[in-house]
């Protein structure tokens, strides 16, 4: 396997994975690269796909590679965002090339790393919202509570949080949303720390496609690598009451 890509794109992929895990198993084939990761608490999952065209140069057979993401992050600190990075698998090593710097690191044994199962969810409601509005809602929630409640109705998308005394609410009516499809109102509560880390790691996305049900996981789809790749993020809800 040998591939060349923009440093900025690899940085984004690594940062997104690091919100959930410190090691990941990357799958390569002729068509491109994919990676799935679940956090240790099994609350969230991310699935990233970057097709061959998303790379500057790309050649690979069917291969699985275990990578220590913290190490890659350290290597990327040596590069500027405008640089190009090349990486090659040589035996049990992965060698990175940035300009005239070469840096090798051992691969992680993938035999103990399972590829997470992706739940098959039938989520009845969907909205497409600007990342900036979503980020505002999450940041407002973060200062008040550890949970945020999301709600989709036929006419609006709402994010709200209640602390002991404080309340924060972001409300996007239908005409401020790019797309909305919802027959019945749906509502679920999610742990805000996961979403804080997610929005911090996103770099390319301008819009998020959100799928939801009531007391069901949320599915968020967004662009990565400047629109050349796709990401799907799943997060299990917190159930109120009981």
């Amino acid at each position, binding site marked *: 396997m040998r591939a060349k890509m923009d440093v900025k794109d690899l940085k984004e992929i690594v940062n997104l994975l690091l919100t959930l895990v410190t090691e990941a198993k990357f799958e390569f084939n002729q068509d491109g690269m994919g990676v799935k990761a679940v956090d240790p608490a099994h609350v969230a*999952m991310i699935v990233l796909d970057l097709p061959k065209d998303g790379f500057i140069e790309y050649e690979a057979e069917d291969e699985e590679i275990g990578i220590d993401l*913290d190490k890659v992050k350290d290597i990327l600190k040596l590069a500027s965002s405008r640089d190009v990075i090349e990486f090659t698998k040589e035996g049990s090593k992965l060698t990175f090339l940035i300009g005239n710097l070469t840096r090798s690191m051992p691969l992680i044994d993938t035999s103990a790393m399972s590829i997470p199962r992706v*739940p098959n969810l039938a989520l009845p409601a969907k909205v497409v919202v600007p990342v900036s509005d979503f980020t505002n809602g999450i940041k407002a929630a973060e200062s008040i509570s*550890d949970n945020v409640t999301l709600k989709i109705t036929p006419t609006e998308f709402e994010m709200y949080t209640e602390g002991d005394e404080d309340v924060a609410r972001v409300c996007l009516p239908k005409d401020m949303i790019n797309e909305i499809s919802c027959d019945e109102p749906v509502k679920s509560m999610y*742990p805000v720390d996961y979403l*804080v880390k997610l929005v911090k790691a996103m770099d390319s996305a301008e819009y998020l496609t959100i799928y939801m049900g009531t007391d069901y996981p949320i599915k968020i789809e967004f662009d990565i690598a400047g629109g050349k790749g796709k990401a799907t993020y799943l997060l299990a809800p*917190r*159930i109120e009451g*009981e």
Partner: protein
Amino acid sequence: MNPTVCVRCKGRLWCGLNKCPIIETARNTLPKLSLSGDSIFGASPPSVFVGKKGYPYVYAGPLISEEKVPFISTSELFGMSLNDVLSSTATLIRTAKKVNVRKFNEKIIEASQEIAMSERSVDTEIWVEKYYGGATVDEFFHPTGPRIQPQKIVVAENPVIPNKVDSVIEEKLKAEIAIRELYFYGYDVDYLQRLMAAGVMGKSRRMVPTRWSITAVDDIASRALLKKVKQYDTIDAVEYRYAAYMGNEFHIFLIPGSWEYEMLESWMKGSIYSGGWSVGVGDYEPYSGRKNYADNVTGAYYSARLGVAEYLAKIRRQAKIIVYREITSDYKLPLGVWVIRETVRYAMRLKPVKFSSIEEALNAAKTKMHNAEWISKSRILYNLHHQRKLEDYF
């Protein structure tokens, strides 16, 4: 007095009174010390106290003992009986002169700074202007002996200042960066605290009330450790530890998952501040940390957090932490947050009992608790109980 206010305020005078009646009553039970004469000669452990009343005009000065230096670090006090702690702290005479925290024009400040920077005790001579007697107790700092107003103060010996400390001070790093660097270098938190209190660190130098500097150092050191801890894998089983000291009973739970921290307290009937009631309080921080002061638990929150953060950094793992502290009627005097820090550190050195779920751990721990009401108040437990996993939806 309203005990739900008192257990949170802990002598901060939220009631509007001039003096805290609870602390005054406690003070009066302390042993009294008389001075040998108009001038005293003895060693400073080394130690410095900076008050906070009237800030920025505060009473400040070094502590001096006419007898053998009782201790250098509060970590040495851990395990002693209440009487032993009180008799060793009561020999510490607290010199106090009113100074402006930003104006280093008084001789007493210079002396305090020299003493604070020293790693070893420093012989000091003081001419007494006024003797106030009594003793002082504080929720943050260890108890001290009588207070005197000095007329003149002479440091009679060269302080021993390690090169590392000297260079960090000379560099004029931001206080937070300087403390982090010295903490990782291995210096005791009590040493760093007195450097901060004496105002020798930071870009804009000023003295910092002892109470604030204790919490600042606990906070800075634990945040620095947690930055590393958050990079580590999570522990793989629930761990439970129990330790008790001076009427403080700690139940510490480590739960697999990304870092979160919560400290809850039950002030049992008969403990200081609680009056005839049992009162519970708590503070929490999510993975990202907290942005404001832990106003319910106060300094103990940060001291306990340092104890668990040191442990997690050592084993290179992260976890969700619940520290539950029961304060029983054996806790009659505020002794300072070192009691919390050292008891938690001690607990973390114990071999844990492991469980496969938090429910099992709580059930086992309940047999040792006086009060299990906090379980329904814990945010970490609420979130764990209500958090679904992705595999619930396969």
